[in-house]
């Protein structure tokens, strides 16, 4: 019995893969079916996931076992229900309250997080002594980092026209951005081909036994 289900599983996996890939040729009924199954199954998956891993442990189990000690969780519970009330047009505006709490929290957290980890730490990382190494390539490289970062920032300057000295720097900045884009593109190719290798190992190896 279990063998049948394992076999069926392999078939389902292979069919799913081929149906998705068929999209590369053109949109077709097989892709449409796979797409709809994907949307349906994954939506239900995340719903079940949320119920079991977020709502039950963080809210329901707390409120049901000891409502008095956990009274504070009635607040997010009520806010959550206010969110749900969007379904009824009359109460639509109630969802603004939970939304404003979330957006305010998000704004506060992001402000600090990006100030710290993206702005300040990247700035201090660029404060380097270009001559710290005896290796010529490293010295050139460190100069490139300093100049590239500064001119890249000039490119993002909005309140001045990009001409003259600023324009010159901004142009240099976009050159660095382009080199950077090309490099990350090239670097990612390997990882993306690996995904295809993984799929083909499943199809050719696990399903068809063509890989030794």
């Amino acid at each position, binding site marked *: 019995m279990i063998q049948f289900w394992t076999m069926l599983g392999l078939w389902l996996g292979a069919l799913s893969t081929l149906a998705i890939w068929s999209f*590369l*040729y053109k949109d077709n009924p097989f892709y449409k079916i796979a797409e709809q199954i994907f949307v349906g199954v994954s939506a239900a998956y995340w719903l079940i996931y949320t119920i079991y891993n977020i709502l039950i442990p963080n809210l329901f189990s707390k409120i049901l076992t000891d409502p008095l000690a956990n009274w504070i969780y009635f607040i997010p519970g009520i806010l959550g229900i206010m969110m749900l009330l969007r379904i009824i047009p009359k109460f639509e505006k109630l969802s603004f309250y939970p939304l404003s709490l979330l957006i305010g929290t998000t704004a506060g957290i992001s402000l600090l997080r990006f100030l710290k980890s993206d702005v300040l730490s990247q700035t201090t990382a660029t404060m380097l002594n270009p001559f710290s190494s005896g290796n010529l390539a490293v010295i050139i490289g460190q100069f490139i980092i300093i100049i590239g970062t500064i001119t890249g920032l000039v490119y993002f300057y909005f309140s001045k026209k990009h001409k003259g000295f600023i324009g010159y720097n901004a142009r240099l900045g976009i050159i660095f951005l382009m080199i950077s884009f090309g490099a990350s593109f090239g670097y990612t*190719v*390997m990882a993306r*081909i*690996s995904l*295809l*290798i*993984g799929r*083909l*190992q499943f199809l*050719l*190896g696990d399903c068809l036994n*063509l*890989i030794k």
Partner: protein
Amino acid sequence: MKITTIDRRWIFLFILIGVGLPLMLPLGFKLEVTPNVQTVYNLIESTPENKVVLLSFDYDPASKPELHPMAFGIIKHAIDRKQKVACLALWPMGSQMVDDVYQNLKKEMPDIEYGRNFINLGYKAGGIVTIQAMGKNLKNVFPSDANGTPITNYSILNSIHTLKDFAWICSFSAGTPGLKEWIMVAKDKYNIPVTGGTTAVSTPGFLPYLNDQNQLTGLLGGLKNAAEYEFLIQRKGTATAGMDAQSVAHIIIIAFIVLGNVAFFVSKKRKKD
């Protein structure tokens, strides 16, 4: 110009074939063996017969494509050199990885015998604390193997009391706990040669350990190094096939880029004329 508007489905087809074929028929592109890989190979090659070695499987299925071929190659090499292989896992799923490698090895190597030259000790929680405890007394930490059979039933671990009795230790590591913990305890404290295999992403973090003190004795980092190892032990495995597929795919992409540029310049010239 027709060629600039080439149907992109041709590209898709080329990529599919270019990746698929080498997987079935590995080409075995010549690989330059990097020094770190050669060091790992030499370590195993120079270990005397009948010594027991320890392999730690610190990864889960997500890192299987990269680390599995390494584990397979190193175990095969060690058994070919008549060493005895003990495996354990610091990650819960690691024990299944050991089983998987063992099942595949058995197909290729009839002289492998569970309990005589191979054993799966299974998973133990605790990370670095577990390693330290093994440094004091191995059999207290692993009284039985992964199937629950007492290890005294098998002959393989007769001569092993603590970590120090292993000839070398290798960790296939996808994160924490993993290779780093093994270096800290097994190498730094007990001075046992430690080597390892890591995913390409985490490799840079281990390079500082390849130093004068030999905190790491060689390292396999990513699929490319795994393929080099397969080249050294002369076995075209999944890493070689994977690396071949990578190379072919890269060549195809570059060829199409060149084609696109040629077509662009030809059409530009014609417009001028």
